[in-house]
Every structure is written in structure tokens, then in C-alpha cells.
């Protein structure tokens, strides 16, 4: 058991131990487990849920949607030109920007929503019970809020202290209403929309529009164009 490592990790995370819990007692052990769970589900830089925690949330949400039929939206948000920020202002400034954007996202959504850091400069937001009609408005509100908010970065070797303006691109998809789905599929679809937002100039929000499913007259025409099926009809006509 790597208990000493666990204790070091908890120490570093300023773990709050229960009062008068003797080391080795059940209450103390429970606190170790709780502390490690918290550590493994959060991102250390932003203190937001990490990818692992996000996937659990998505799985739960997919099951809930299948059972209740309530809509749920997942948004992927990615900081625009992040590499440029890192290159110009240094990695410490980059970290500050990630933390600040994380905070803004968290402040902009409802308490029931989950904002997670997926990795790098990418975030995901799970919005349970979000009506399709409001999806675009929600995504836009989040995007504008980040755009308005500046990020103060300290003076580094690169230059004096200053306020950076950052923007995000947002992609979103609603959870499928049917039973067959997975967290991966859902995220992939939101990611695809994020890609669309990035390639249409960044600092914008793209949401997946449900496909319009119609059978066109061209499709119908082709369905009945088979010589084999036509032959069958002729046979019916020719042979009594």
C-alpha cells in the first residue's frame, strides 16, 4: 500500500482531516479515501472536475436523458490562439488564463451544470435539462462573457503587467434521446461542432442542428427504379 505517497499527496492538497481522527482509525481511513477521490476527480490547476469526473457525469446524464426524455446539452469550449498567449507571455500567464476562463465559465452557468477541464486549454460544460431552443443563447452568453472579461497577468520577463483579452470558441450537441449512446459519442459530436467554430473564424459558438430527415422524391424514384422489381411486376401482368 502506497500510504505514505497518499499522505504526501493529501498534505500537498491541504487536505482537511476530521477533528480528533486517530491515524489508522476508520474515520481517518475514510478521510484518506475521500481525499484521494477528490484528488483523482479534480484538475489541480483550476480545481474544476477533470476528464475522469466529466465522463462519469456524462454517463449519468445519458442514462437520465434516456429515462426521462429531458434534453441535455454538452458544450466544448476552447481558448482561441492559446499557443500565442503561452509564447508571448510565458507559461505562467497561460496558466493564469486557463484558471480565469475556468472561473468565468463556472460563474456563467447554473449551479446544477458541470464545468470540467478536459485538458490543455479545453473545457466541457454539461447542462442538464437545457431546452434546445435555449442552446445557442446559452453558448453565446458564455462566449461573450469570456470575451468581455480580461485576464490580468503579472509582469514577467516578457514585459510589464497587463490585462489580456481572450476569446473562446464553443461547440455543442444535445444528448440523444434514445437508449443507444455513449459519453464518447456525445462528446465527439460536440467536439465536431467546436471544430466547426474554430474553422469559421473562432470566437463563435456552433451547435449541432438535428438532421432534417425526409425521404426526397429523388430517393423515392430510385427505390422503384429496379429492373428486377420491374420484371416482377411484368411477370405478374403477363402470367395469369
Amino acid at each position, binding site marked *: 500500500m502506497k500510504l505514505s505517497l497518499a499522505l504526501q499527496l493529501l498534505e500537498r492538497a491541504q487536505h482537511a482531516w476530521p477533528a480528533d481522527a486517530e491515524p489508522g482509525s476508520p474515520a481517518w481511513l475514510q478521510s484518506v479515501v475521500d481525499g484521494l477521490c477528490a484528488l483523482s476527480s479534480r484538475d489541480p490547476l483550476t480545481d474544476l472536475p477533470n476528464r475522469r469526473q466529466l465522463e462519469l457525469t456524462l454517463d449519468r446524464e445519458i442514462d437520465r436523458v434516456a*429515462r426521462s426524455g429531458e434534453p441535455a446539452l454538452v458544450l466544448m469550449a476552447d481558448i482561441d490562439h492559446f499557443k500565442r498567449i503561452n509564447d508571448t507571455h510565458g507559461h505562467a500567464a497561460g496558466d493564469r488564463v486557463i484558471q480565469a476562463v475556468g472561473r468565468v465559465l463556472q460563474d456563467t452557468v447554473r449551479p446544477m451544470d458541470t464545468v470540467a477541464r478536459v485538458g490543455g486549454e479545453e473545457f466541457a460544460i454539461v447542462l442538464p435539462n437545457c431546452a434546445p431552443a435555449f442552446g445557442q443563447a446559452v453558448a453565446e452568453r458564455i462566449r461573450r462573457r469570456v470575451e468581455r472579461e480580461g485576464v490580468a497577468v503579472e509582469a514577467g520577463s516578457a514585459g510589464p503587467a497587463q490585462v489580456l483579452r481572450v476569446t473562446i470558441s464553443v461547440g455543442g450537441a444535445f444528448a440523444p434521446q434514445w*437508449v*443507444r449512446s455513449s459519453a464518447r459519442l456525445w462528446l465527439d459530436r460536440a467536439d465536431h461542432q467546436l471544430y466547426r467554430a474554430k474553422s469559421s473564424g473562432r470566437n463563435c459558438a456552433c451547435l449541432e442542428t438535428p*438532421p432534417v430527415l425526409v*425521404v426526397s422524391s429523388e430517393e423515392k424514384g430510385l427505390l422503384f427504379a*429496379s429492373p428486377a422489381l420491374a420484371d416482377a411486376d411484368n411477370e405478374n401482368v403477363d402470367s395469369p
Partner: protein
Amino acid sequence: MNAPAADPPTTGSPGPIGHRARVMAVTSGKGGVGKTFVAANLAAALARRGERVLVLDADLGLANLDVVLNLQPKVTLHDVFTGRATLKEATLKAPGGFSVLLAGSGLVEYSRLTPDLRERLLEVIHQVTPHYDRVLLDTGAGISDVVLYAVSLADDVLVIATPEPTSLTDAYATVKVLAAQQQREIFRLAVNQVSRKGEGRAVQQQLQTVVDRFVRTGEGAAVKLDLLGELPTDTAVREAVQRRKLLLEVQPGSPAALAMIALAERLPKVVLR
């Protein structure tokens, strides 16, 4: 015949831990193409080769599996949904050696996909699958939310079509919607009421041609229609339907019955998972 089965499965005990039946939805888009007839007789054919089969009447509003099988159930899924009976009590033995869960008369109550209905259907599937090798979901006609949801509970989809243009169009629309919404890449196809040998293949090829051109899954994957078989127009079918008997029971040697058995043989055997 109408008494509740002693136990839900024919053998009475659940399979190995973790075993779950393969669930296949039987659907068609258009009504009146023989969906329920195929579901019932296919179940009988599968039971003949030793599978533990349950047919679940998922056409909750306008159920007629009871009509096809000439059963007058006292306890139905409706009673299970309303808490008046257990699933075990509602599971009946059908003449062909398989089990059935009949919908009963919910009528309007189940015409809309409410959260309640979602939850109940999902629960029923979870509860029955450990006890069988295969569960057939006889869905309603059309592509309503209730039908699409019922299909989403299934591992496989069997589309029933006839060579008629309206049936072809509706089968095609069903495939298109299910591929886009449920990421389905494979559909089994059974062509009913063919008037000559090979017509089922022609129907499959025609549908496949149009599917190749216009249909993709939500993720952009190609969609394949696997022809399970064709069922000839046969006076024996009409007689069996009129007498409300299984074709496989009353005319097991008829061309349509033999075709049904061949069709069942093309379904991969359920391997214990």
C-alpha cells in the same frame, strides 16, 4: 394455455451470471406487412432450435400479438406498468414453445413517450433479459417516438417489408431515421409476401442502392441491409392468420413455414456472454 407461466423463462432459471438475451426489435414503418405474424412465427422457429425466446408486445397502444396467438390474457404488461401484477405473472407461454408479454389495453395512455413510459420499458427489458436467449420486440407501425424508443432498447433491428412501393418507402424511411439517430450500421431485412423466388434479394438490392447513396449513421458510417430471407405469398399463411394459429403449428410443411425456419437459421445463434 392462458394461465400465467410458472416461471418467466421456459427453463425457469436465469442463465449464467451476466448473461443477457440478445434483443431484436421487429419493425417496418408501414403497418399491415406482417410484423406481428413474423415476430410470432420467428419466435416459434427459434424456440424449435432450442432458444429460450420471449416476444414482447411493444406496440403498447394498438397491440395485437394476442390476436395473432389467440390468447385472452387476464394479466398484461399494462397491469405490470400500473403495479397490479408482477412481470412473472404477466409472462405467458405461447403455443409455439416461447414466452410472451402482451401489452393489454393501454390504448391512448401509451401513445405518447412520457418519462414514465421510458422508465418502465427500460426496466422491463432489464428484468427479462437475464432469463432468455433472445427477446423479440414487436413494435408498432410508423416511426413515432414510442416506436423509435422501443427500437433503441434493442441490439438488432429486423425490418419487415413487402415488395409494395409504400412498404419499401416506409422501410427505407425507418432505416434512414434509425441510422441517423441511433448510429445503427446493420439492419436485418425480411421480405414478406414475395410472389416469386429472388424477389426478396431484388428488394434488398434496391433498398441497399438507395441507402448507399443517401443514408449514413450520425457518425457518417455506411449502413448495410442484411437479407435474412424472403417469405412467399402462401395460402397457408392466410389460413393460419384466419384461424389465429401459428403457421409453424398448423402448416409446418408449407412454403412460408419452411421459409420462416430458414430465416431463423440465418440469425446467428445466441452465444452466452
